[in-house]
């Protein structure tokens, strides 16, 4: 780089030498993104009702802050959340807003982290900028940045670890090893997805090292996997039973011991250990041959080219300073938090074996009973750009690798990074889809690598256009801008046409769930459905014309950037609605079994009633087991609250009694004579059975009644049956009515069926009803 180039980028400092007198456009853009991130993550954090899981997290954090201590329990994942929130409650008091401040802060950091990937051998400057912008507008990451669960912390740790890995491979500086160690330690204090993350990262690095150092290792590993698979299938055919179930539900020491013995006695496990030992011996033999008498590290990794993963591993193992400091810091974070600031040393065991064992055991429970295609349908509804660019990225990467292989030239470091992102995305999607417990908040772990990949592609496109811009004539520039505007305009035009055509009247129609009110197409549109394809036809013509005028590559780059602009508008639309307008109303798949807004409303009414009657918060409120979560949190400031379990043992004296639907019995209703009730939904959920569950059969679900919502066929279902069910769903999209229905579901969250709910009753003593009505209305 010349002196002039350095000067062009070095920030000039003012006379005081403190603040720069000029900033680059890039810095200014990052500044704007930062401001937008802060605003979007922190605005109006407290208005959405706390989810059931959120209420657990906030309540136990609050108890910790109040001095009642904290002990790690794998059910509620890692300890970082509880320590962070307890600290915030100590500083700022406990409220719904404060409860979500730390996730919001983590969300802001996640948005800004791509700044560390600006290097030309990583995402590039444009790619990193796009990454920050896309993370800013990612609906799932935005939503869960404002949700007091562990996922955003896990995402932060994952991202930091990924950055540490690619930066260390790029430059081998100790600070990245330190960041990696710290990030790993922090990751373990968040949630058990960290095990999946480490599996993905370690296997990728292992494959990358093996490819350089000893490709034969990959053959050995593949052979071992095949042998293990064959052994497992053979044992199954011979009638050997399944692996022993993991005792995950607060197991005793004896149960753990018996499980461990049974596990290590199981033929599949014995075979697996044997195959692993054989593979290990073979690997050691192979590596010993390769090192040819030199030291192990130098002998195996010494010939690795600069910039390769193997070279990075060599430096890490030989220099060690960064590794030791990083590992030390990570261990410190782990120990401090899992031991609850050294007050519970058993937390170290529950945080490792306990956590892994619990969550492996949970996979068989299949909590939520979500089908294998859950994330395949969930991610594209929110992450338009990430989902659309994913197959494009695979094709582009495959094309580049093919060309490199055929020409014998090495792949660039950017290709390495993109390959890492593809591997990460595919495996994360695969593992989470395989896992028994599928939840919408896990979407963020898939969204992150997909978003970074999309950003990398968009960055490449932007670099291509920016490079060409200076050489183009003004007319060519105008044509490029016009082509881009045309893409966006046609996308908008299609949306308007589709919205209009699908906005027909509601009519009663027979469905598989009975006669229901359903939206139809506009009659004229139903007879002239071809009009909705006109914008697509025009788009194709525009692209052909642009390709002729501008060239294919520039046209594709323009299409990518303009398409991203149009899709960003769509993501803002989807994300804003879900995050700020109806975050506690499950018209979105991402909003799962959510506490209804009636709960905080009821709480406010009870607070007002209490202040009128008692002058403070002394109103006596009784509540049962079904309303315990989230009312443990919402009633925390009522000192006279009383939890009565599942039934009343006596006629209540409290002015207000909360009872869930599970505990409404004739006896209870007799005990509550003299009270008037108002019934509300406490938790409500997206109508899964009438929507996405009908996409395909799900034979992997233990509950047979949930395997098929598409037709009347009964289980069992084969792989062909599943493929057929998928095909039927895809083929049904050729029907205009179905297109309209899917469009309105994705675009406007128009549900074809009511949402389900779990309700509760607020019983108020009769003499107080006029008071309460006066407060309500």
């Amino acid at each position, binding site marked *: 780089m010349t002196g002039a*180039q350095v000067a062009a980028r070095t*920030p000039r400092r003012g006379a005081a030498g403190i603040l720069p007198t000029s900033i680059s456009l890039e810095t200014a853009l990052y500044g704007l993104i930062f401001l937008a991130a802060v605003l979007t993550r922190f605005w109006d954090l407290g208005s959405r009702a706390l989810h059931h899981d959120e209420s657990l997290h906030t309540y136990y954090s609050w108890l910790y802050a109040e001095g009642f201590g904290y002990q790690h329990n794998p059910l509620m994942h890692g300890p970082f959340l509880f320590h962070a929130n307890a600290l915030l409650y100590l500083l700022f008091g406990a409220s719904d807003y404060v409860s979500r401040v730390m996730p919001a802060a983590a969300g802001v950091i996640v948005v800004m982290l791509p700044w560390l990937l600006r290097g030309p051998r990583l995402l590039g*400057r444009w790619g990193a900028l796009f990454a920050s912008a896309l993370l800013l507008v990612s609906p799932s990451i935005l939503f869960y940045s404002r949700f007091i669960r562990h996922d955003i912390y896990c995402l932060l740790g994952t991202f930091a670890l990924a950055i540490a890995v690619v930066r260390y491979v790029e430059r081998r500086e100790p600070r990245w090893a330190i960041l990696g160690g710290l990030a790993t330690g922090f990751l373990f204090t968040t949630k058990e997805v960290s095990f999946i993350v480490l599996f993905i990262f370690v296997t990728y690095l292992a494959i990358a090292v093996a490819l350089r150092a000893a490709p034969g290792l990959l053959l050995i590993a593949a052979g071992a996997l095949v042998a293990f698979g064959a052994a497992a299938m053979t044992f199954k055919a011979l009638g050997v039973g399944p692996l022993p179930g993991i005792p995950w539900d607060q197991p005793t020491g004896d149960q753990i011991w018996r499980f461990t013995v049974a596990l290590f006695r199981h033929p599949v496990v014995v075979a697996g250990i044997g195959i692993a030992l054989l593979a290990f011996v073979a690997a050691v033999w192979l590596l010993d041959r390769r090192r040819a008498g030199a030291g192990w590290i130098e002998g195996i990794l010494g010939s690795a080219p600069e910039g390769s993963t193997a070279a990075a591993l060599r430096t890490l193992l030989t220099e060690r300073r960064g590794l030791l400091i990083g590992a030390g810091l990570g261990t410190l974070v782990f120990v401090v938090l899992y031991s609850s600031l050294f007050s519970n040393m058993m937390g170290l065991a529950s945080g490792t074996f306990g956590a892994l064992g619990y969550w492996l055991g949970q996979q068989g429970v299949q909590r939520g009973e979500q089908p294998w295609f859950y994330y395949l349908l969930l991610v594209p509804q929110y992450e338009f750009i990430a989902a659309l660019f994913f197959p494009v990225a695979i094709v582009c990467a495959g094309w580049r690798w093919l060309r490199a292989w055929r020409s014998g030239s090495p792949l660039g470091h950017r290709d390495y990074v993109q390959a890492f992102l593809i591997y990460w995305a595919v495996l994360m999607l695969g593992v989470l889809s395989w896992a028994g417990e599928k939840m919408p908040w896990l979407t963020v772990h898939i969204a992150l690598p997909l978003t970074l990949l999309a950003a990398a592609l968009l960055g490449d496109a932007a670099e291509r256009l920016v490079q060409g811009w200076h050489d183009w004539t003004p007319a060519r520039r105008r044509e490029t801008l016009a082509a881009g505007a045309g893409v966006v305009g046609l996308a908008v035009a299609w949306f308007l046409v589709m919205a209009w055509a699908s906005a027909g009247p509601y009519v009663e129609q027979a469905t598989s769930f009975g006669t229901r009110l359903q939206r139809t197409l506009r009659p004229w549109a139903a007879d002239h459905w071809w009009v909705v394809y006109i914008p697509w036809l025009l788009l194709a013509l525009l692209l052909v014309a642009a390709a002729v005028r501008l060239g294919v590559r520039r046209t594709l780059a323009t299409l990518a950037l303009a398409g991203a602009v149009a899709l960003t508008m769509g993501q*803002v639309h989807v994300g804003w609605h879900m995050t700020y307008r109806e975050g506690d109303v499950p018209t979105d798949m991402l909003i799962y079994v959510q506490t209804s807004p009636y709960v905080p409303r009821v709480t406010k009414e009870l607070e007002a009633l209490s202040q009128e009657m008692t002058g403070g918060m002394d109103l006596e409120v009784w509540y049962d087991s079904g309303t315990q979560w989230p009312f443990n949190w919402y009633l925390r400031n009522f000192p006279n609250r009383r939890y009565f379990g599942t039934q009343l043992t006596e006629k209540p004296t409290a002015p207000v009694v909360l009872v869930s639907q599970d505990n409404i019995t004739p006896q209870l209703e007799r005990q509550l004579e003299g009270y008037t009730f108002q019934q509300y939904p406490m938790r409500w959920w997206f109508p899964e059975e009438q929507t996405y569950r009908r996409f395909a059969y799900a034979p992997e679900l233990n509950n047979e009644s949930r395997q098929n919502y598409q037709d009347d066929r009964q289980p069992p279902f084969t792989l062909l049956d599943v493929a057929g069910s998928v095909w039927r769903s895809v083929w049904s999209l050729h029907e205009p009515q179905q297109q309209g229905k899917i469009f309105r579901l994705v675009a406007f969250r128009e549900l074809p069926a009511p949402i389900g709910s779990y309700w509760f009753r607020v019983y108020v003593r009769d003499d107080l009803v006029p008071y309460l*009505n006066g407060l309500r209305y």
Partner: protein
Amino acid sequence: MLHRLTVFDQADAAPGALDRRLDLSALSWEGVGWVAAALLAALVRLIQLTTWPLGAEEARIATDGLALATGGTVSDNAWTHPLVVEAEALAMFLFGPSDGVARLVPVLAGFGAIALLWPLRRWVGRGAALGAAVLLALSPTMVFTARQAGAGSLLVAGSLLVLVLLLHHLSQPTTLSAVATGAAAGLLLLTGPLGWVALPLTAGAGIAMAGGRRARPRDLSGLAVGLLLVLITLSTALFTRPGGFSEFLSASLGALWREHLANAGTQWWMTPLVLVVDEFLLLVLAVVAGWQVLVNPERLPFGTARPARAILGWAVVGTVVATIVGGAAAAGYSLAVLPLVLAGGVGLGALVGGIDWTEVWTGRGLAFVVAVFLTFAALLSTFNTLGSTPATSARFAWLLTLAILILLVLVPLLLATVWLARRLDQPATGLVGLAVLLVLGAVTLHTGVMLGATNVNRPGEPLLIGSTTPAVGRWIARIETLSADLTTFTQNAQDPTGGHAFTIVLDEEIAQPFAWYLRDFPNLRVVNADEPATGTTPPDVVIALPEHVPALLGAQDDYVPRPYALTVPTPPSFAQPDWGALLAGLTDPAQIRHFTEFLLDRQVSVPAEPRAFALVLRADHAERVYGPTTETKTP
């Protein structure tokens, strides 16, 4: 560490677009002034943006915008202002339907208008452009249009866009600039019927400012291309409403005739009233500008005399046109206020530019300004005392007070002021003007801020006439709560979350803004007063003009009606001014005193009864909301 990262990480890339530098050291006082103007504009426009519920016209526009964004059916009224509706549709697509989002479009257009004053520096001078930006930020009419979902703010921004592009084109004509100017003209026409009036006014002003330069003949085709392209593209909503262009032409021109030209001259006094009451600062500064232009044109920045003359001419013509055809609405007032803002900017720039600021920051100049303030306060007190009528027994005390005020306060202050003035190195008139401006500016700021206040009674604020009262918002919330409590579990595809199963009947004459607020209720019916409200399902709620209730309810007698305020009324003194009393009051100290108080508190001697609506609840609902009641029959 930051520096090291920057150098090492960008080792291989040549400087590119992202390396362009933004020079922070170039920030001058002028730059600080622009930032301050923008912050002031944001403050006055955004605070309490949604305290007033949407007005009927606002709600119509919001409903149309939402319908366009979701594929619904837009009303015929939408074609009079397609740009407004499409901007609303975009906002609601991105951020969802709400009052705040509906008003986001005019707020952003208001900021855009301030930004568009920046390029005018080249023609009117830096001081005048900055002055205009400050005045635009402060002007209550501009603040009001920027807080209302409607055409006003887009009309202002569109006019400035046309002006800037036209001036640029006339100074450096190219085909591209011609097309851009034509496109801007198209946007202005699409803001509403008044766009047809604003365009020739703005274009004429632009041509006059440019020294009468004409467009090249070949540029006319570029203008036409830009104009037609924008008109056709946007009136057809990107070609998705094929008949949109013809509908726009007929609807917009029809509305121009119906609402403005056919009733030309009706309530002509409202525009001058708004200018005197709300824009007094602009009038004063426009007069200053006129003085500078006509008497001291050489003191204006080089090359700005002609544009300043053109702006003054625009202000005069704009005021006349707004008076005749503007109607009594903020969009119409803006035809006069916008050029007055520019003229006021010229005056403010000249005034401020003529002050030696070094002397102000030293003791003498500052002391003089303070003395002027104190003298003004003493004058005000003296006038106040003179204007009050003491009781017979208190006459001596009154005389004594007056004597003390004049002899011990006013005269010494006047003498001190004159003494300080003589010691100034610059003419005192500039500093006196500055003091007066600060006072007027404070009053104007107060007026603009008070536009957002619903808990301060200001019946004489002309800009708020016709606004929906807060009672509407409160009752909407109660109806929603009541419906949620009673129909939470009544769910279907139209209402999957439940809680909106109430049957609600709206009187067609006052359907908006209630139809906007109750849009989530699938059983909402808008009916004509002649049509009984029963239908197949007796309504839970009826909202109607009080006199229509009996007709709408027919034989139903199990309802409880109560009247509530619907809109802010026009005070009788505005609806039918007593010109004789007004003219006589010009020389009556008591009336002058009353007027100065009116400038601050907007109290009128005879307030009007608000236009009312009747909220009719079914008896069981009424008991829940009002408590046990004996009102079980319709009136």
